[in-house]
């Protein structure tokens, strides 16, 4: 039974991930010309997948096992490790990977929009730690 559950969930995620090959998704990423825009395109895809997860969760026909797995999966994308481990509602999370990506995008845009050397220095000072943090996150840190 456990292997059947895993097979069903793997199939589910594979189908969701396959959407990166679809025309609409490709079109969004083709519009991105800067690193910040590419990151925004990724966040748009994250929102689209999150929306579909919400549709599944809201559907009374979805099995409880799949519902809980999808909720846990989505939670890890918006909640930090600290937030995941406390009794905090997913709705209240604001420090997870998606939010760290927001901060990096804001940092990139601040660099792009800097008008003076002082603004550029400040923007870079804010951006570098975010990039280090993201690199660490990607490496499983």
């Amino acid at each position: 039974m456990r292997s059947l559950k895993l097979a069903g969930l793997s199939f589910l995620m594979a189908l969701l991930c396959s959407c990166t090959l679809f025309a609409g998704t490709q079109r969004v990423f083709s519009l991105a010309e800067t690193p910040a825009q590419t990151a925004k395109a990724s966040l748009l895809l994250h929102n689209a997948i999150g929306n579909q997860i919400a549709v599944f969760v809201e559907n009374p026909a979805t099995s409880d096992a799949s519902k809980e797995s999808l909720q846990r999966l989505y939670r890890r994308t918006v909640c930090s490790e600290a937030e995941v481990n406390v009794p905090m509602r997913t709705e209240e999370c604001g420090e997870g990977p998606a939010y760290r990506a927001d901060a990096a995008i804001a940092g990139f845009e601040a660099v792009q929009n800097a008008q003076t050397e002082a603004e550029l220095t400040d923007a870079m000072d804010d951006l570098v730690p975010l990039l280090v943090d993201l690199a660490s996150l990607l490496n499983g840190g």
Partner: protein
Amino acid sequence: MKPWIRISLGVLTGYWIRDGKTEQAALLTDALAAQDAGRDVDDLMEAAAVKWEAQGEPTLEEIVAARKAIQARVGG
């Protein structure tokens, strides 16, 4: 997925439910729904592409606001 395959899987689901194998039936139903989900996600991305072309790139505020709404719906 070809219609005859989907219909066959639907029939199989029905047999499983009849035989009390509700967990297997539920997982298969979820997997079939996931296929539609992949297309639905791409429809959302297509809409985002249309909006981007018409109005320019989305702002971070818009993206985060949409995410907050999704977080509330997903729950947990």
